[in-house]
């Protein structure tokens, strides 16, 4: 059995197999896998006895349910007006320079993906970003470099 298949089965056991449990299961897979592959969607559809197309339609509706392969760490920069006002673009530029990728791309080593997102709810501490589910606020280019370096080191340590 593929690990994803097992993961999905476990998630379904945990949440239930009704339509309304679809979202938590999708979230569970994304948390683990960082994205929803074609295969996992088919498996989820099978597990919940849903049409695969519906799973796909639902998943594509939500911006946090990625359906393309993503990096280990997904960086989401808030692009709402208050963050824009407080220098979001410099932050993006800093990250792009550091990771050598553009917004929407993943580093070749599969560690980082850079995305923009709508309001993170930290307008008073703009600019803000998420790395996976971790929030970082009051960003400055220096601060961002520091944070990212931390992640890169952490990653290396793990390896």
């Amino acid at each position, binding site marked *: 059995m593929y690990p994803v298949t097992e993961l999905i089965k476990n998630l379904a056991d945990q949440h239930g197999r009704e339509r309304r449990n679809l979202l938590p299961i999708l979230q569970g897979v994304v948390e683990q896998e960082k994205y929803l592959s*074609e295969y996992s*969607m*088919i498996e989820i*559809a*099978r597990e919940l006895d849903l*049409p*695969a*197309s*519906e*799973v*796909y*339609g639902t998943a*594509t*509706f939500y911006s946090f349910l990625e*359906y393309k392969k993503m990096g280990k760490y997904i960086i989401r920069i808030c692009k709402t007006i208050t963050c824009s006002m407080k220098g979001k673009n410099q932050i993006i530029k800093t990250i792009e320079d550091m990771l050598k990728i553009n917004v929407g791309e993943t580093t070749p080593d599969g560690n980082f993906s850079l995305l923009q997102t709508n309001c993170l709810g930290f307008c008073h501490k703009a600019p803000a970003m998420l790395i996976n589910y971790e929030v970082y606020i009051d960003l400055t280019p220096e601060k961002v470099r520091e944070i990212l370096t931390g992640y890169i080191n952490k990653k290396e340590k793990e390896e």
Partner: protein
Amino acid sequence: MAKKIKITINEVALEIEPGTSILDAARQTGVIIPTLCYHKDLCVAGNCRVCVVEIVGQKRLSAACATPCEDGMDILTNSFKVRNSRKHIIELLLSEHNADCTRCYKNGNCELQKLASDYKIMTQDFIRLSRSKNYTIDHYSPSIIKDDSKCIRCQRCVRTCEEIQGVNALTVAYKGDRMKISTFFEKPMNDVICTNCGQCINHCPTGALVEKNYIEEVWEAIADKGCHVIVQTAPAVRIGLGEELGFKVGSRVTGKMVSALKRLGFDAVMDTDFSADLTIMEEGTELMMRLKRALEDHDPDVKLPMATSCSPGWIKYIEHMYPDYLGYLSTCKSPQQMFGALAKTYYAKAKNLNPAKIVSVSIMPCTAKKFESNRPEMHDSGFRDVDYVLTTRELAIMIKQAGIDFMRLEDMSFDSLMGESTGAGVIFGATGGVMEAALRTVYELVTGRPVPFENLNITPVRGMDGVKEASIKIESPIQEWAFLDGVELKCAVAHGLINAKKVMDSIISGESHYHFVEFMACPGGCLGGGGQPIPTNPEIRRKRAEAIYAEDEGMPLRKSHQNPEILKIYNDFLLKPMGEKSHQLLHTKYSPRKRF
């Protein structure tokens, strides 16, 4: 019944049932409210917003299709605000739309075109969004073309695929400006669960979903002097074709259709009804053999109920959804494919033709038949059994292109050898028809007496209920079938795949015990097929069904086993039902498919 409520529409007072939508209420008073995403067959979506009306006292407009009337409502359907808003909405839709109508397959029968014409949208001030978007056209399926540049996101197809068919090949994906109608992972239509039934085409208001047409290929074949082009016409075509050519709904145009086909240049015009009769002989025999094995031999492996296999949409559906239950299907090919196999063998031999030079065309109310004729199994004659499948709509286009004044055509009759049919063959076009035709023959073969229904009309299997059940008690059969004495033959009929699913689930769960079940993919059977004239709605289906049964009653012969050409083919060629030749040419097998 609840108390009626009072409303006014455009200053006309009326009383209506509570819960009536504003749209229906308006229609009752002769006020037309334009609609796009609304369809009688489907649930209310309320997403196109074209049907907005003003309720006096409310600032916002309400969608007439989705808003129930409330007591005392004062509704204006054509106020300044409504008109302006409606025009805006139509303009918005147009700004997203590829408006090259002259080159569109749905030109002239497009709801958006009509709406734009009724509201005389004469300006296009909004920015053409269609230009900057990279729309895809999916033409990989042998049956259906999906062109996103024509899509207005009304979601009728999605609702059709889900509510009527339960297939869910189409879904809504993404949100906001990227929102689109999509298949699973935007795969081509022929790579997903799509059954090719074409109901989405029939419900699409624009040209976003159309059948793949083979008109040019057929013209080419006709022009090729070296080819012998034969054509067969399905039962439901003759009662639908007229609608495309200026006749009222429910007109029977069999004679004119034959005459037109001859004028188009087909070398022989024959009838799928003939092979429908043949199907009854084969399928009826198969049923009796299964019954014998089950009831007399008590063979545990025999699969009952036996399910019909005429509808290729249904076949693909069961292959996807119930791959473990393919054994329940009758092994009979659909009448079209039986005809095709015989055309390049029996017919070729009788007419002394080189089968390689025969081009076999069929006119079907169906888009799934295009797929079916493409299946690798369908080469039993040594060639592709049916070369081209055209829908009723495509035939109408060919007739128009050829400049045939259809209204004034004289009636003609089918060519011989495979042109003769009985009323039993005709009713294949309606839901319950195969069942009725089979019972007429089976009962008579088993008991030696005609079915005990007035005028042979087995009314319980007729009508538009999604699932119909009937049972016939067999009494004093002839000697050979003595084991059937007293057996109550239980039958069910399902049309529309969502109903097929219901019946299948009840069979699998062991809830129902049928002997024989008829499944048709399209609501109403073939007469409501995906290749039939658009629009198709409950009212139109009802009228077409009436026409089918009228055609049946007008036939001199009404039981398949009485068809002289059937008797002839068994005598000269096939020898006996379910015989060796039959197995080779008329029966097939099925393959499981993935479910997405």
